[in-house]
Structures are given as C-alpha cells and as structure tokens.
C-alpha cells in the first residue's frame, strides 16, 4: 500500500472544495420553463441571484441555465438528467461526456410516456406518477427531487434536500487563470477547466446503505465518512486503480467502480445510481452532520462528487431489496450466463512456467483425486508480454497442451492485457499504430506508458471500430496457438500504467471523439472487457459462451464476464473482507465474482489456506491464485490431512454445481445475485442488516466463514422462523436465534434452510465435463409444515441454445408427504430442445418424522425403499436423515414420489 501515490480528497481540488460546503450555502437553484415533451418532463435550472447580484449585474455574465429532464420507466424507476444547455447562445463548444453502452439498449423501450404533470396551485411543486403507490415530486424553489409513497407522502429518496447541488459549467479560461493540476511530478493540463458536479442524496427510512464498490472492507454496510463520531475519513472513492498490496479496510478506490448505492431498513429498500465514469467521491454522512437538531435515525444522507460528466441518475423505489436489484438490472443488465465449467474450480498461479509444469500440475490433481476445470497462464507465457503470442521456449506446443487438457474435459485461460508493447515487429502494435487505434496523449500523439511489456500503448476501446478490430484478434486464426478450449483473462485494465499518475493514465489523455480520459476513466476497463468477450463470441460463431475474467469493472460489466477482487494478500483479515467485497459486487450487479483463494501476495499458513478453500468453495467465482514470489500452494502440498480437507472443500463446490448453475441462470434473468447478504432473504430481520460474516447462497443455504486462526467456536445468527439443518451432520437449529457452535477443522458452518430443496450431484469427477450424465441427489429440508420447494435448471452448459428453449427447468415441491417434479419451462420458447438421461439416484429428507419405509413413484406405481442414511458420502459419515434409495426417475420428466 503506497498511500502517498494516490490522491486523497484534500489533494483533489473538486473534492476538497465540495466537501467543505455547508448545507444551503450555495445560491438557490430554481426550476423554470417546466414542460412535457416526448413523454419526458423538461425544465431549466437557474441559480437565484441575490439582490446584490441584481444590482451589480453588469459585467458578470448571467450564468447559463441548466437543462433538467425527468423520465419514468417501468417498475418504479426515475431517471434524472441535468446537463449544460447546449442551445443557449453562450453554450460551450465541447459536449460533456455521457457514458454510452452501459444502459441496456432496450431500456428506452420501457419508458413510460408522461402525459402530463400536475402542479400544486401555487406552482411551487410538480408531481409525476412513478409506479403504483409511488410518485415523483419536483420542488421548484429551491430545486429538490423527491421520490415518495403516494398516500403517506413518506419520502424514499431525495436529491438536493440540503442544497448542495453544484454544477461547474464549462467556460472560457480567464486571463491569468491556471487550470493545470500537479500531483507527484505529473501535470494534468486540464484544458477544459473545472467541470465538477456534486449534490446530496438522502435515503429516507434507511438504516444502512450498501454498494458503491470497489473498496476493501470488513463491513458490508457502508460506514459514515463524515459527521459526528467520524474522526477523519476519506470519502469513498470511485476511481479504478491498480493498488499494490491494498489494505483490507479502506475507503480508497480499487480496481473497479459502480456508482450504485442501495439503502435498506425496516421500511424498505431503495437505490440510487449515477451513470458517470469520471472520478467520483462519495461521503456517507453521519446523523447530525448538518448540525440539524433533529438528527433522525431513519435517514441516511450522502454526498456525491464527480470531477466531470453530467448528471444522469436513476432512482429505484424498491420497495423490497430484490426489487431494487431487479430495477437496477433493468438499467445495466444481468450477468451473462457462463459456461458450466466456468463456475467450477480454477487453478491459477503467476506463473505456470512451461508445458511440463502445466502437465505436472494437471497430473497432480488427478493423482490426488481433486477436480478442477481450468488451468490458467499468467503474463510469463507470452513472448515478452506480447499478448496473443507464446514464449516458444517454454510453450513450444500450446495447441497440443490445450488438447491434452481438453481430453480430460478441462479448459485453459491465458491472460491478455491492454498494454500493447511498442515494438514495430509486433503485429498488434503495428496494426494499432497504422490504424490510429491507440489512446492519444494530450498532444495528440499515441499515448506511451510503461507496463509489463515496457513502453506500451493502449487500444482505445471506446471506439466501436477499435473494439471490432480487437475482437478479431481472438479468432483461432489470428491468435496462434489458441484452441476452442482456451478462454481469456483481462488484467491491468483500470488501466494500469506504471509510470502514470496514480499508476494509471493521465486524465488529459484523449479518446475517440475527443473525450478526455478523465471523463471515462472508470469505464475504460469495461470497454476492454466487452471487446474481449465479443472476440470470444465471434470466435465461436456466436455459439460458444465467452469466459473473460476482468479486474477493472464498471456498472454493466456483469454482461461481459466475471470479476475478481484483484491482488489481495494471504492474511486472515483479507479472508474476512472478501465476503463483504463479493457481496457488494453482487448487490451492484456483478454476481459472478470471487477473491483469489489463499491471497495473491504472501504465503498463507496451511490453516488459512484450508479455511480459504472452505469459504471460497461458495464464492460464485472460485479460483486459486498466487504471486510468483510465493511458495507453491497446489492443494496437495501441505500434507495428507490438508490435502483431504482441501479436496473436501472443492468437492462441496462440485456437489453443489447443479444448485449453483440454477442460481446463475436465475441471476442472468433477474439480477438477483448468487451470493447474497442475509437481509436480501430476510429483509425484515434487523439482526441481519449489519452481518458481514455470513451470507446466503440462493435462498436455501447459509454459510458462516471462519476468519480467525485456531478458532474453536463461532456464533452464528440463523434468521427467520424456520429451522436450519447443519450441512455437515444434519443437526437442526431453530431460526431467529444466535447459536454458539463448535468449529471443526473439516468444514465451515453451513446450513440448509428448512423449506428448501437443493439439487446436488454426489459423484466426483475430474471436471464438470464428466459430470454431465451423472445422477442427481435431492436434499430436501422440510419446514415446520413438512413442506419444501426448490428448482433445478439444466442446459448443455456451453451454447446459447437455451435462448431458444433448449433447457430443462424443474420445480420440486414437497408437501403432504409427496414430492412433485414439474416443469417451469417457458412455453414460448420451444424452438430447440435439450434432453437429459440423468436420473435421481437419491433423495435425502431432513426433518421427516422417522417411520417412513417405502416410497411409491408415479407414473409406474413403482416402489422403492426408504432407509436411514448419511448426508454426505464420506468415510465415517453417520445416518442422520431418511433416504429414498434409487428412485431412478429421470430428471427431465414429470413425476411424483409419495412417502409411505
């Protein structure tokens, strides 16, 4: 952690200045010229002039009004845009940057046509219909936007309630004025001068706010950064940065940025998203920050500052937390459905050095009966960090190497970073130079920065033509040594520039269309990720789902692939912070995410490594990775006992793959993450709101991490009214209570919720590929009324045929002593079919009173036995449940099984 290398708020003029402002100290903004046009509400915003100004109004030019536009979308979404009035006579020649490609193209189709606006008699307030039960209220003087419940008039979210709205309009440079900014020897020319925006947003009825990744923290709920009780804190910074050895708890910005915040409390949830890719700083204000005597506990005020761009904000009314996530997903999209292999276990290291090393590691997994699906190659596999090439001494036959892995159903991932080596004999560089595809420096020359490849330039992937070109590089023909089983990893795409300001690109670098880097910095990584994923999509003729892991991200990155939390360290605190970090990513759309197992920097103690595997087996993205200075840490290097423990942890993930895959499908449709904070499932249980240690996988599984060395016992809060079944030994625990549990070496506490059905596979293979035809086990945890339900989604795990209906989607319901499997296949999608001959080999019933001996299967009136059995098939496992033996029904069919 090189603190001095990064700008803090005080070293950042727009942040320093905005942060010192007090409520209502700026000139009031007044709404005028309000009208409905094209189904939007538009108006002007004009600063009020104090009487003094009126008198002296001679030489100071009258400020241009701002243009405000309100639009309403289906399901309770309000969009507020505020920008310069480019039609005004003194309008600036430069357009401020509006982030394209993040909002889904079909979002506009969901816009509600506003027929009219109703105003109060005195004209001081206008209101708009938002959705059933919610409305938007626009106060004219001073300007304020409020989303509120219709009948009770209870506000939910409001903007500018504290009069902190400030919009620095573009203007001509005055004589003698110095716009340059300097930081640690770097000079930002700032040719367009100050252009920052800041405003306050209040979440009413909120007890906690969450979101705005990426920050490392051991707390899921965002802590106050300013106000009473806060000593001194930086605001939460959103600025994509490559931070060396980041701290486990800090508001400083990391690799990605999503300016989306959610609030939650007993009164409901709400969300606010500011589509802006410039540097952003966000304060969470402690109650009483504005010296108001009535510091209520039911409101959280926040203060948002950005260096450039426009106001393009989205208000989500909820009212439930899942509603907010779905509303946000309808703007920025849901995760791209990954291939099945991608959600299994990945083995990575900087670096697997050569083909022999790859073969040895691959063999090691087989030798120790540990499944894995993907072997990764880091930067050293290339010829001098020229991506798309191979070090032919170390990797003389890359195709053959990949084919050997593929023969066992395994895949490979290679790294492709955005820094292109400035070497005229390197075709990528030559083409990019010739075609003018690089980002330019402030003088218009190709920007030349230093990264792994030495002197490097960066493709300007903001330009669709450049993305097209970049995507072509991934064709099997262009990428020599690649095969169809090779997928991609994008690292360093913040972008990381070793000799740039804050290890990144200068803000005055120029992109396509004259856009300054400062305006799009946070979205650069997304564009690079997008272009790479497009490349893999093209490579497979649109039939093979891409897999691209990226470090940098922005709102919408979920549509392009997986994200990981970057270069973490091998210590217990970082194990702990991985959970809130991944949960936060999930809440802000990035459901497919994980942290490096074991910690990237440093050598984990074996106990930490084992605990990390046990926790990470539940991460949506499950990959082990390590820095090249660390000791080898393949799972079998720590003695037989540890090998067995790690094998078991990885087996747990593989056994749950049917459940995970179904959750991925759900997330790809709804935007509800795979790994969830407890309060997402138990929104009315206050005790869950600030829990950062435990999480849910889907609706049925609760996991509590073990974050301390040698921990002997742990307190686990199990929410809700139903019981929970310990997944290790089947023991039942009542809900709504905190249980003190003994901690075991062999697993971390995990529970299945009574009332849920979890589909699993209890056969272990080398990789997911060999599991395709294996039979299922259904684990049914009955609730107090002896009922349960669950789902299973299956498709070919690879193609897009599911979009034409080639999938199996089952719903399982257990009630009245009968388990029923029925289809929930969308009837409108029947163009293609997916069939499976898989059967159910075992049904485990937890919570069924003993006495059942037989089950009758319909159709066929076929009987099978019920007998006591274990929860897992491990040596020493004892009988803790009733097991229906070999019902052997086909997973694709409709059937019922009655317990007698």
């Amino acid at each position: 952690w090189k603190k001095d290398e990064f700008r803090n708020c005080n070293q950042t003029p727009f942040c320093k200045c905005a942060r010192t402002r007090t409520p209502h100290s700026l000139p009031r903004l007044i709404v005028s010229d309000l009208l409905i046009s094209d189904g939007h509400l538009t108006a002007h915003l004009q600063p009020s002039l104090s009487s003094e100004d009126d008198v002296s109004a001679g030489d100071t030019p009258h400020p241009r009004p701002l243009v405000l536009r309100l639009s309403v979308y289906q399901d309770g979404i309000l969009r507020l845009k505020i920008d310069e009035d480019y039609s005004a006579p003194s309008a600036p020649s430069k357009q401020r940057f509006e982030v394209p490609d993040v909002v889904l193209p079909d979002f506009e189709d969901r816009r509600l046509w506003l027929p009219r606006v109703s105003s109060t008699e005195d004209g001081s307030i206008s209101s708009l219909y938002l959705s059933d039960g919610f409305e938007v209220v626009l106060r004219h003087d001073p300007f304020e936007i409020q989303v509120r419940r219709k009948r009770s008039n209870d506000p939910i979210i409001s903007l500018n309630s504290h009069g902190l709205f400030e919009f620095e309009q573009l203007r001509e440079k005055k004589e003698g004025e110095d716009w340059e900014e300097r930081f640690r020897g770097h000079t930002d020319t700032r040719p367009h001068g100050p252009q920052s925006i800041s405003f306050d947003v209040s979440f009413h009825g909120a007890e906690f706010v969450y979101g705005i990744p990426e920050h490392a923290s051991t707390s899921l709920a965002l802590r106050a950064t300013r106000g009473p009780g806060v000593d001194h804190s930086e605001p939460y910074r959103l600025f994509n940065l490559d931070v060396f050895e980041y701290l486990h708890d800090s508001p400083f910005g990391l690799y990605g940025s999503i300016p989306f915040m959610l609030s939650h409390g007993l009164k409901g949830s709400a969300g606010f998203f500011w589509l802006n890719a410039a540097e952003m700083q966000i304060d969470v204000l402690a109650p009483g920050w504005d010296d108001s005597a009535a510091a209520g506990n039911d409101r959280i005020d926040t203060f948002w500052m950005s260096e450039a761009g426009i106001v393009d904000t989205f208000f989500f009314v909820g009212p439930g937390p899942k509603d907010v996530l779905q509303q946000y997903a309808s703007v920025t999209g849901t995760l791209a459905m990954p291939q099945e292999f991608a959600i299994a276990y990945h083995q990575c290291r900087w670096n697997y050095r050569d083909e022999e090393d790859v073969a040895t590691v691959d063999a090691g997994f087989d030798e120790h009966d540990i499944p894995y699906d993907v072997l990764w190659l880091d930067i050293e596999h290339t010829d001098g960090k020229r991506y798309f090439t191979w070090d032919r001494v170390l990797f003389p036959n890359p195709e053959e190497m990949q084919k050997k892995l593929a023969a066992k159903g395994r895949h490979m991932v290679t790294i492709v970073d955005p820094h292109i080596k400035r070497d005229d004999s390197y075709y990528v560089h030559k083409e990019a130079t010739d075609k003018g595809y690089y980002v330019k420096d402030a003088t218009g020359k190709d920007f030349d920065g230093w990264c792994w490849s030495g002197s490097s330039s960066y493709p300007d992937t903001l330009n669709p033509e450049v993305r097209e070109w970049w995507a072509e590089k991934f064709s099997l023909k262009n990428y020599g040594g690649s095969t169809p089983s090779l997928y991609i990893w994008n690292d360093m795409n913040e972008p990381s520039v070793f000799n740039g300001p804050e290890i990144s690109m200068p803000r005055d670098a120029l992109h396509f269309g004259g856009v300054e880097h400062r305006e799009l910095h946070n979205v650069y990584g997304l564009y690079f990720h997008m272009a790479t994923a497009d490349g893999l999509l093209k490579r497979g003729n649109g039939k093979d789902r891409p897999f691209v892991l990226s470090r940098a991200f922005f709102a919408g990155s979920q549509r392009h692939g997986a994200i990981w939390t970057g270069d973490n360290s091998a210590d217990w605190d970082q194990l702990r912070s991985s959970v809130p970090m991944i949960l936060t990513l999930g809440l802000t759309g990035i459901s497919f995410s994980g942290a490096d197992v074991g910690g990237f920097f440093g050598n984990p103690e074996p106990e930490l490594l084992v605990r990390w595997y046990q926790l990470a087996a539940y991460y949506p993205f499950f990959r082990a990775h390590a820095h090249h200075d660390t000791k080898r840490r393949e799972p079998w290097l720590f003695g037989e006992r540890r090998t067995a423990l790690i094998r078991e942890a990885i087996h747990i993930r593989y056994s749950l793959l049917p459940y995970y895959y179904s959750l991925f499908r759900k997330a790809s449709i709804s935007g509800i993450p795979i790994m969830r904070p407890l309060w997402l499932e138990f929104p009315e249980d206050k005790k869950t709101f600030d829990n950062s240690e435990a999480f849910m996988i889907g609706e049925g599984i609760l996991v509590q991490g073990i974050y301390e060395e040698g921990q002997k016992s742990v307190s686990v809060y199990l929410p809700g009214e139903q019981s929970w079944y310990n997944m290790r030994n089947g023991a039942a625990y009542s809900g709504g209570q905190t249980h003190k549990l003994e901690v075991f070496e062999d697993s971390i506490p995990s529970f299945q919720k009574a009332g849920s059905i979890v589909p699993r596979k209890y056969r272990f293979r080398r990789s997911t590929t060999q599991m395709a035809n294996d039979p299922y086990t259904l684990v049914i945890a009955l609730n107090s009324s002896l009922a349960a339900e669950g789902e299973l989604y299956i498709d070919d795990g690879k193609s897009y045929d599911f979009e034409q209906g080639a999938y199996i989607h089952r719903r399982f319901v257990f009630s009245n002593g009968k388990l029923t499997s029925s289809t929930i296949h969308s009837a409108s999608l029947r163009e293609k079919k997916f069939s499976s001959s898989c059967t159910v080999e075992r049904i485990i019933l937890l919570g069924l009173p003993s006495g059942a001996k037989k089950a009758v299967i319909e159709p066929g009136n076929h009987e099978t036995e019920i007998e006591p059995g274990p929860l897992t098939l491990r040596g020493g496992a004892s009988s803790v449940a009733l097991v229906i033996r070999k019902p052997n029904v086909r997973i694709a069919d409709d059937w019922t099984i009655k317990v007698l």
Partner: protein
Amino acid sequence: ATPIPNKQLLGIDPQDLSFYKSNVIKCKDGSKKFAKELLNDEFCDCPDGTDEPGTSACPEGKFYCQNAGHTPIKIFSSRVNDGVCDCCDGSDEYNSNANCTNTCWEAGKVAREKLKKKIETFKEGLIIRKEEVEKANKAYAKDEADLAKLKSDEKVLKELVQKLREQKERIDKLEEEERLKKEKEEKSLREEEEKSKEQEIKADETQNFDTMDNHEQDGSTGNLDIAVESGNDNMVESKKASTQTAEQHVGEGHDDTLESSDGISQDGEISSYEVPKQDQDDSGSTEELSREELGRLVASRWTSEGADQTTDKIGNVEEDLMDQDSSVAHEHKGYTSETDDDREKDDDDDDNFEDDRDDEFEDDHSSSDASYIADEYEKPDPLDSIEVSSPTWLDKIQQTVQSVLQAFNFFKTPVNVSDATHIRKEYDDTSSKLSKMQSRISSLTEKLKRDFGKEKEFYFFYDQCFESKQNKYVYKICPFKQASQDEGYSNTRLGSWDNFEESYRVMVFNNGEKCWNGPDRSLKVRLRCGLKNEISDVDEPSRCEYTALMSTPALCLEDKLKELEKKLEQMNTRKPQGHHDEL
C-alpha cells in the same frame, strides 16, 4: 454363498474376491452390512466404497483394473465411466461413450523393457556401489588414523613452538635493550643532520605512499602485492629491524582477512536495513525519475526483478538503493570468493617467500599446501599423505630446532644477528606449520563429523562437486558444502549443506542468498540409482526454491532391486492369453 455374477465382479481386486463371497457383506470400515445384490448396484451404501468397487457411486471407492499384459492398478472411482480411458485394458469405461482400446500389451511391453533396463542399471550400480562403499570405508578409516596421528604430532609441535617462542622473546628483549642504547648514542648525532634533510625525506615518503595506494587499488591481488612487497622491503631494507618482519607480515595478513570480512558483514547489514527503507521512502522522490524509470520502478514491486532489469542509471534514491542492494549482493558474492582466493594466494606466497629463503622443506611444504589450496572440495584429500605418513619430517624439525636452540649463545653481547635470525625463522616456520596442521585437524574433524550414509556410501561426495548446465546457468552442487547457480562470472549461492532427507534420498541445501522480496534460496537434490554421479533436471518450481535430480550408484540398493525384479516377474506372469512374451 452364491457365486458372484459377472457384473458384480467389476472393479474387485482378485485378492479381495473371498471378501465378497458371503450373501451379506460387511463394509470394510465396519459401518454397516449390505446384501450381496447391492454390490455394484450404482448406489453407495458403504461410505468407504466397499459396496461399489465397480461403479462411481461412492466417492471413496477404488476400481481395480486387471490390465492383463501390463500392471494391474487401482483407480479412483471418480474415473469409472467418466469418458476418459484410464485403464489400459479399458475396463473402467464399460458403460460410457468412450471408445477405449486395449493397449496393455503394447504399453506393457514398453514398461517391461523400461523395467528391465532399470533392473540392469540397478545390478551394475549395485556392484559399483559395493566397490565404492568398500573404498569409502577404507578411506574413512585412514582419515581417522590420520587424524589421530595429526593430533599427537600437534602436541609435539606445540611444545617446540612454545620453546622457540620463549627463546625468541628473550632475544627480542636483548635486542631491544641494545637498540635503545644505540639510539641514545646516535640521537644527538642525528639531530643536526635531520634538520637539513627533513624536506627531502618528506617528499620521498609521499612518493612511497602513492605507490602503495596504487597497489591497493589494483583489485583482488592488491593486498597480496603489498604483503609481498612490504615483506621484501623489510628484508632488503632492514637488517637491523628485521625482528618484526615476519610477525608483522603474519599480523598484516590476518588483519586483512578480518577487515575484508568485516566489510562484508557491514555491507550485508546495510543492505538488509535498506530494503525495507525502500518501501517507505519513495514519497516525493519519484518525481525526478524519467517516465521509463518510474514505470520500471513500479513494475518492480510486483516482479521483484526490478533491480536486475534496471541497468540504466537511475538518479533516484529508491532505485539507487535497489541498485546498491543488488551490487552489494554481487560484491558480496565476488568478495567472498575473492577473499578465498586471497587467502589461498597468500598461502602460496607464504610458501614462495619461505622457499626463497629456505628450501629445506620445499617438497613437503608446497605439496601439502597445494592439496590444501586446491580447495577442500576439488582435490580428493586436503591432507597430504606423504606429510602425514612420513615420520621423518617431525623428527627433522625437532632436530633442527634442537640444534638452533643449542647454537644460540645468550651470554654473548651484542646478540649474534645470524643466530637470532635463525631462531626467529625457525619460530615462524614451526608456528606456521603448527597452524596449518591445526587447520588440517579441524577440517578433518569437520569432515569426519559428517553423515556419509548408512554404509558411508556418500563418503566420496565430500570432496566432489557436480555440475550441470541448463540454458545459461551452470549449477554447481558440492555435497556437504554448498550449491550455486553460476551465470558467467556471477554466481548465486543456492544454499549451504543442511542434511539428507527421506532416508538419504534427498540432499538439502538451505539458507542460500536471499531472494529480493522472497525467501532465502534453497535446493533439494533428489537422488536416484544411476551408474554415474550426474546432475539433471534442475528446476525452480517455486520462486527461489530449486530442485534437481541426481543419479548415483549410491542409491542402487539391493532391496529396491529385489522389488523391481519381483515386479518384472509379476508382469511377465500376467501375460494375457494368446500372447507370447518374447522375453
């Protein structure tokens, strides 16, 4: 008991068949019993896999493939019907899409050939090993005898040195008295002369100093030259002050060594203090860097290779430190070896020096020194056998000393210069003999303390180094001493001898040079049976943790040979029907 149907036989080790005969079968872990019809019924009843040897139903199960024509193996149940052919007879894929052909005969043939070759190697190796062990034990016994002899000789020599020292001190005292007296007399005479000549002398001295300085800067041989010159100077210059020559010389040499080793440790300390400083200290200073330098600097945090890669001059504190660090490290390396060289050459020169004056012991001396100098681990024996085994040399010394001592007349004043010189020389010679003998004793003691294996089969490793060239590096492994990685003139210490591991199958070298941002380097050499001592496959699987393979007859063990022969026998007896083994 009913016979077991064929399908149920799947995956069962023939040795286990009887276990599965009864109608109710126990799980091997004792957890429960199951009816025979549940054997291989694709449902896991015993968590240990007893009931599903032929299917993938139990995760802890093992599947036995017969592999007729090759070696039978047991595979994890996870491989059964997984679409990948794991058994060469294809029996693991009896119900999958995989189209496995039986490759056992071909594969078995190759394996048998390989095994036969291996057995041949073991047989031959075993013979070599026996010879070596015999030789080693003899040599070891001789070492022990030599050591005993050396120790008793040491005693005698010590006494002689003691006597000579006493005499010498007496002479010193007498001479000192004479000198003081003479000085007094000359003082008044000289005072006048000095006054007039003062200027000239001063100029001369300065000149002398300059020459000395130049010598010092000559590099590795500088010290040596000075030592020799000053020795010679003294010889020529002062008949009168020759008293201190030899002693001074010895003293000087000693000091030199001390100094240089001090220097090293200081440098070492400095660098280790400065590494952490780098981390904290870079605020502000990066501003003066060129853009490329800054890029390299930041990159080096992740790679830890920055120091090596940064060859350009870098006007920055941080990089400077890093460079210094690496150059210190290099110097350190160079220094150590140079110091070694110095010492050797010093010895050499000692000899020459002595030889110039006295060739009485020339033969003994130079030859014994040569074997010593040629370095502990390059020549077979650091101790000169002639010297140790010849009883005469010690007698000779004794006689000489005796005669010298007797010849000296203490009552004659002034002291007879030639006699005094004689005594002094004899003292110097004898005490240097003693110190050499003592160093031989200590090195031999050191050697004999080593663990040379159960049968002393590694005895001859002690004085040998083994080299292997891999790409640009030459790996030099000196068992019981150290291992290094050499690239051109730079060499990196991979580790010092630690011990054997895994009952003499692995040689461990630890505490090598520290990796920047990483662990201390270390090396593990895995030994295997071979006809020659040869290093191969040096590897660095984890950063700065090296591994190597070494074949040696020392590992060609009888037990292992028997094991291999048994294995071959088994392979040959398990021919599938219809095949004739041409062996």
